[in-house]
């Protein structure tokens, strides 16, 4: 109320409340994003570890993406594997057996 009165007399607009609101919304979003990127790093490492047990992988060819949609979000995992990965694995198995 006092702010409104002040504005009325001074003819100036109080822009600080707008700044405050914009910051609060933005930072809530950004803090979430930073947390999310940690999650993606963890997911990527763990997926890499599991798949690497069975297939030899180039770690740089493992992509994990999270896309946020309005109602659903999608987690996209894209792993590039060499063409002869299964032959190698079976070869190793034969040698081991």
């Amino acid at each position, binding site marked *: 109320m006092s702010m409104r009165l002040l504005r009325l007399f001074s003819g100036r607009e109080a822009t600080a409340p707008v700044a405050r609101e914009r910051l609060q919304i933005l*930072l809530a979003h950004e803090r979430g994003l930073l947390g999310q990127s940690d999650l993606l790093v963890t997911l990527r490492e763990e997926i890499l570890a599991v798949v690497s047990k069975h297939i030899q992988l180039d770690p740089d060819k493992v992509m994990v993406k999270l896309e946020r949609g309005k109602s659903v979000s999608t987690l996209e995992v894209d792993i590039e594997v060499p063409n002869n990965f299964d032959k190698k694995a079976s070869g190793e198995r034969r040698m081991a057996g």
Partner: protein
Amino acid sequence: MAKVLVVTSGKGGVGKTTSTAALGAALAQRGQNVVVVDFDVGLRNLDLVMGAERRVVFDLINVVQGVAKLPQALIRDKRLENLWLLPASQTRDKDALTDEGVGRVIDELRSRFDWILCDSPAGIERGATLAMRYCDEAVIVTNPEVSSVRDSDRIIGMLDSKTVRAERGERVEKHILITRYDPARAARGEMLNIDDILEILATPLLGIIPESQDVLKASNVGSPVTLNNADSAPARAYVDASRRLMGEEVAMVVPAERKGFMDRLLGRRAA
């Protein structure tokens, strides 16, 4: 016990170097042994603000790389005998700093000083992360302005994750220092007020430095504002902040300019 304090912000031009010099001098005036360390490799300015630019021989990079010994690179202040400067290199780039090398220099400084104030470069790259890497405490310099508050939030996140203390599960004590504050504009709702900033950043306040011409005047002549005009509003605010750093309880007020008779007569604005 020596304390390593990083003065940081993310955003450039908010007053990190001014604040490092002013707080360093204020702590030294209270009898503490203080060194201010410039981490802005390639764009050093703490030497200029301290008025020691013509006395730089060796620098932080030389010490990190073992070219010079620490005592050769330390410059004693002309005004206070227990205030020292470790300048940054002006010709090298930030890649010349190594994590391990910085750690060694900080360890050596810990054995010689009560306070090690690290003046961080702007940004979130190598120079800034190394400046905060070994800190016990952090002063986050923030202007009452949206982009500065956003960058401060980012820096707070880094202090909580990328410092040695954070990695050990220990806490970095963080303080917000608001600079370039204009109480009149905040009262009119034209500038974010203190409570808004503190609520958004959820970090305790170390001090409020009012916008003032005395800051520019002090840097013009190469003197920390706390030494150049001890009676000025920003100097008193920095002294209060330094006392809080030393654990004293000091009431939080925004020091006002003391206007002279002529100023009042002519209706001169403070800022």
